[in-house]
């Protein structure tokens, strides 16, 4: 089943903490249960998104890396 991504955040090229800040802003604009997809190149983003997910309760549904680009899919709690 394909996942239904509602919002996208292109944070490629942005340095810490902007990928998280932009995602925090975007997730406010979607409904509970909806998904947001984030692309980032900041090397700290893997740990940052895991920590952010644990603290805020927004579930980290998918996490992949492709050629230096990290992709995260989060579900708004």
């Amino acid at each position, binding site marked *: 089943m394909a996942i239904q991504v509602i919002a996208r955040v292109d944070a490629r*090229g*942005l*340095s*810490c*903490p*902007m990928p*998280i*800040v*932009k*995602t*925090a*802003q975007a997730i406010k604009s979607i409904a509970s249960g909806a998904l947001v997809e984030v692309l980032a190149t900041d090397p700290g983003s893997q740990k940052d998104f895991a920590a*952010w997910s644990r*603290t*805020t309760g927004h579930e980290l549904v998918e996490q992949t890396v492709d050629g230096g680009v990290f992709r995260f899919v989060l579900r708004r709690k």
Partner: protein
Amino acid sequence: MAESDPLNLVLFSGTDDKLQAAAVLTAGAAALGKPVNVFLQYWALDAFRTNRIDRDHGLAPEAGVEGREAVAALRAAGQASWPETLRQAKELGGVDIQACSLSMDLLEIQPSDLDPLVDGIEGVTAFWLSAGDGPVVFI
């Protein structure tokens, strides 16, 4: 630290590297939903004047030549400036930036001289009261 205890940043230094570090800490905490109190003193407050905020404020002495080059490269790569980082943090909510009233007097700054990022002016007692049991970081 309880969930609701704020992060409290006292900004003293007015160089771009220290203000950038403070802005990054602020934005990261705001993204986690933590309240953040920022108290501006001395040279940090001076950097928040409307007519100075976008100027080059230099770097701390320990930066050295290599540090200068590294910071310049980050900027050239499109790193958000510290005022922009703080604006984004404030958009998330929970960030309160106050000017120290003693520093306002010392530097002869009028409230109308300050960038809209600054929410108000308060004394040190009000700052400690709002700090609650949260950690205090001095930069």
